[in-house]
């Protein structure tokens, strides 16, 4: 399939999926569109990096990092808690398909394959969490930087 058509499908479907999941967990109406944008950004980052051969973990960390940053920006702008944007946004990233494969292997009796898939689920969930941790780290650094800047400005004005 044409790469541009693929890109359009991935973008549109991740946006739709995020908004639809946001409706399932009852996000306020005026946050829905921003949720969709966050989800699309996270998924496209993951998809592009993964297809460029970065590996699953790096792609997940990068996806959730971007998602978290956008969540914080939307949270500031709309004066809403950031989890309103983060939680629906991670839906395309969560390892649902891998978890399914783990159950599949478990039932059909290949325990070692099942363990490999289960381990991968745990690793991906951890990678997403690391991405969010990096986001809060960036947020703190940015806040300190801003405070420092303002302090400098005040010092200059007082002299």
């Amino acid at each position, binding site marked *: 399939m044409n790469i541009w058509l693929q890109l359009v499908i991935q973008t549109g479907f991740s946006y739709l*999926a995020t908004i*639809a999941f946001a409706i399932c967990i*009852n*996000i306020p109406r005026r946050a829905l569109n921003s949720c969709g944008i966050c989800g699309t950004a996270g998924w496209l980052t993951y998809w592009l990096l993964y297809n460029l051969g970065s590996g699953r973990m790096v792609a997940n960390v990068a996806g959730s990092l971007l998602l978290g940053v956008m969540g914080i920006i939307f949270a500031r702008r709309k004066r809403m808690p950031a989890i*309103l944007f983060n939680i629906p946004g991670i839906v395309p990233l969560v390892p*649902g398909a891998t978890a399914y494969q783990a159950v599949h292997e478990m039932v059909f009796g290949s325990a070692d394959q099942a363990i490999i898939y289960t381990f991968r689920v745990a690793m991906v969930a951890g990678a*997403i969490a690391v991405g969010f941790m990096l986001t809060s780290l960036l947020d703190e650094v940015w806040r300190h930087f801003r405070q420092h800047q303002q302090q400098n400005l005040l010092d200059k004005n007082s002299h």
Partner: protein
Amino acid sequence: MNQPALPISTYKLDLLIDTCLLTGRIMIESGSEMYRVEDTINRIANNAGVKNSVIYTTPTGLFFGIKGQPVSELRQINQRTINLEKVQQVNTLSRRFAAGEIGLWQLHYDLEQIDRESLFFPLWLQTLAAIVVSATLMILFSGQYDWRDFLITGLIGGCGYLANYYINLWTRVKFLSEFLAALTIGVLGVVAIRLNWGSNYNNILIGAMMPLVPGVPLTNSIRDLFAGHLLTGTVRAVEAILTAAAIGTGIGLCFRFFF
């Protein structure tokens, strides 16, 4: 024994304690992060004039007390869902209280109202959303652009969501609704394959499961663990893993008997 005098009367203190506990209960029940719960409660207490409040939160109950005072109360938390509209509303109320737009009485009254009303989108819209989630995520996750199964995945996903919803109303047994919904999805998937309405059983099931899979609670529990809330993270992880196990059992039964 001389206790330091509080800046507010005993009557108002009771109201404050109840308000703080109510805030915490609503937020934890709606799936908020723990640091936000503690932060919000501390802010409310601060703005009401009590500077030395102590709060201890777990996903199954929370304590609120004031340093140096012989008062501390607890509330139990029996249900944990995700309803982010409530988190948002409590957040707005707390901001308005901080700005002095509403008093403690009004805050308590509004919180009770939020607690009573279960604000949700209408069921048909939720089901439609579940259909969209299933169909689109099937395409994204399978990576095969499997258009033949697109519609049927959506329909089965919607049926699974409805099954989960109605069984939840009908029984109080935890994890039973997820188990039966997964079983429904598995059986419907088999029926669809046998009637030749779908082609790839695995893709149909992966998509149709997505509205039920506890991927979000699992990721959140790991975030809680990284944030240092070990107890919350563990409890939420156990809940997510049990839900996943219930879904896995339902699917596993289908595999066992139909293939």
